[in-house]
């Protein structure tokens, strides 16, 4: 079976500073994988390389067996690679519903149409509202995104990724910046994701990581330090030394 996402010997440096060093990573279909590592380990850079926001200096990225290393970010998204951002990237001046309709429209190529009224396709609106309902955002549908509390904005971020109908989903700290009283809501959503979607989650909260992930990749200074099941990682003395021990079991996260 071809892997949903395969990263081969990915390499990237900023000036003299290597931030991604020969990273190999494989996500099978329906994978539940976590990427952990201390701050500055290059986790977000890796996500940016996979999604095409950054170009690697060498190495390959394969999506469902096809080489997409040369493809643009938008091209990768259209092929089923979706992401959420560590810091919200939303259409803040538009309503929540418009955020979702736009995503559905771009996914289906509707947005090439200059003539038809955007609201005339009831199917698009219903589908968009469907995503909002699944995340209990329906009551906020007509609010501007910037009027929502940050925690609910995080949910919109996830709703947009879902509306892309991805086959591979990269979640960059989905609960970052959300008060812990609300973060369970987001993590429940993450836990309930379609089992066919391959998911890679970057997360600092070790409870979440060990509960959610079937495999864990530890990134240290841009290179894969070790990979394994949650049990293996938990019992790995070196990981404890470089990461768990250093930041504590809870992973005191900042920025």
């Amino acid at each position, binding site marked *: 079976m071809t892997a949903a996402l395969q990263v081969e010997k990915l390499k990237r440096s900023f000036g003299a500073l290597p931030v991604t060093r020969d990273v190999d990573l494989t996500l099978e279909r329906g994978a539940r994988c976590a990427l952990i590592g201390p701050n500055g380990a290059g986790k977000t850079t890796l996500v940016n390389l996979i999604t095409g926001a950054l170009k690697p200096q060498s190495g390959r990225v394969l999506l469902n067996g096809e080489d997409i290393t040369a493809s643009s970010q938008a091209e990768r998204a259209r092929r089923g690679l979706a992401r959420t951002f560590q810091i919200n*990237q939303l*259409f*803040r001046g538009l309503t929540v519903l418009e955020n979702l309709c736009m995503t559905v429209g771009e996914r289906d190529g509707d947005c*090439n149409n200059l*003539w038809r009224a955007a609201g*005339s396709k009831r199917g698009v609106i219903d589908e968009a509202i469907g995503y909002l309902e699944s995340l209990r955002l*329906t009551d906020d549908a007509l609010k501007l995104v910037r009027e929502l509390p940050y925690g609910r904005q995080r949910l919109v971020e996830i709703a947009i990724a879902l509306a892309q109908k991805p086959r591979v989903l990269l979640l960059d700290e989905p609960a970052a910046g959300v008060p812990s009283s609300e973060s369970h809501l987001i993590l429940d959503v993450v836990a309930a994701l379609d089992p066919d979607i391959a998911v890679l989650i970057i997360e600092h909260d070790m409870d979440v990581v060990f509960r959610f992930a079937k495999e864990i990749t530890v990134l240290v200074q841009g290179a894969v330090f070790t990979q394994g099941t949650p049990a293996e990682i938990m019992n790995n003395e070196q990981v404890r030394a470089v990461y768990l021990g250093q930041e504590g079991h809870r992973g005191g996260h900042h920025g």
Partner: protein
Amino acid sequence: MAASKTTGAPARERAANYLAKRHRFRLAEALPWLIAIAVFFIFPTRMTFGSQVLVMVMFALSLDLILGYAGIVTLGHAAFFGVGAYTVGLAAARLEWTEPISGLFAAAIAAGLVGFITGWFLLRYRGLTLLMLTLATAILLQETGNLRSDISGGYDGLPGLTFKPLLGMFDYDLYGHTYYLYVLAVLAVVFYLVRRIVYSPFGQALTGIRENVRRMHAIGSPVHRRLVTVYTIAAAIAGVAGALFTQTNAYVTLTVFDFDNSAKVMVMLILGGTGRLYGAFVGAAIYMVLEDYFSKLSPTFWQFGIGLMLVLAVLFAPRGILGVFERFGNYLSERKRS
């Protein structure tokens, strides 16, 4: 919030209806057109000035499409106005192609082509870089005209152009009545096109690019293609406005490419309110009427009046005159609710 949680189905219905009905014409939208028609009857001797106002409305409208909706900042929009103006000017002066309506199409194609080519290269950039590059485009076109003043007429321009009667029937009259109605009719057609685009899924994607281009890339939007498309359309419309400018004035000089012209149209649009369609109407009309009034009041110091107006607008109406109305409307509806 807690109360509305129990009403899931109505909330869903309300949201869907809002989007489904948003593009419909509202009664208030008839207002600017009624005013334009009323002006025709009330000020029969000011029709040439009226035509100029309508031309600037169209020019500002084309800028709204790219600045207000797609978030493209440009200081070189006069380039397309100029290309349109010179297309009909040169066609009339050098080729004796003086039929006005086919001239508009030629101007739209020429300006659209220039928009497409320059946009293809420039729209990879944003912000200040784009600002400088668009400015440079207009200057380059102006200097090209200056270089070949044997063709363009240089800064003396192409004076005394004559055009064939409209549709072969309606001739130019001293007070410009014919041209006022002609420009108004063309503006109505152009406005309808722009309105369709703005409310289309493509128009939605443009606001997405304005709001967050990173997110647009991430959801798979061909951002560059979208920008070049809308830039080409806006250029074509600006070209039509330029062509009408030449036709109503019966002359054209290289000053149409001036930085002044690019800056003025932007000021008009911002004064009226960006991203609102009607901001172009309000801004262009108020700016030009005040400019006309001040320049008669004091031929030497009239720019002081314009400057004062801009300062007041920036202080009290940062989102344009329509923004003030919108805020006032929201205030009233909130008072009604409480």
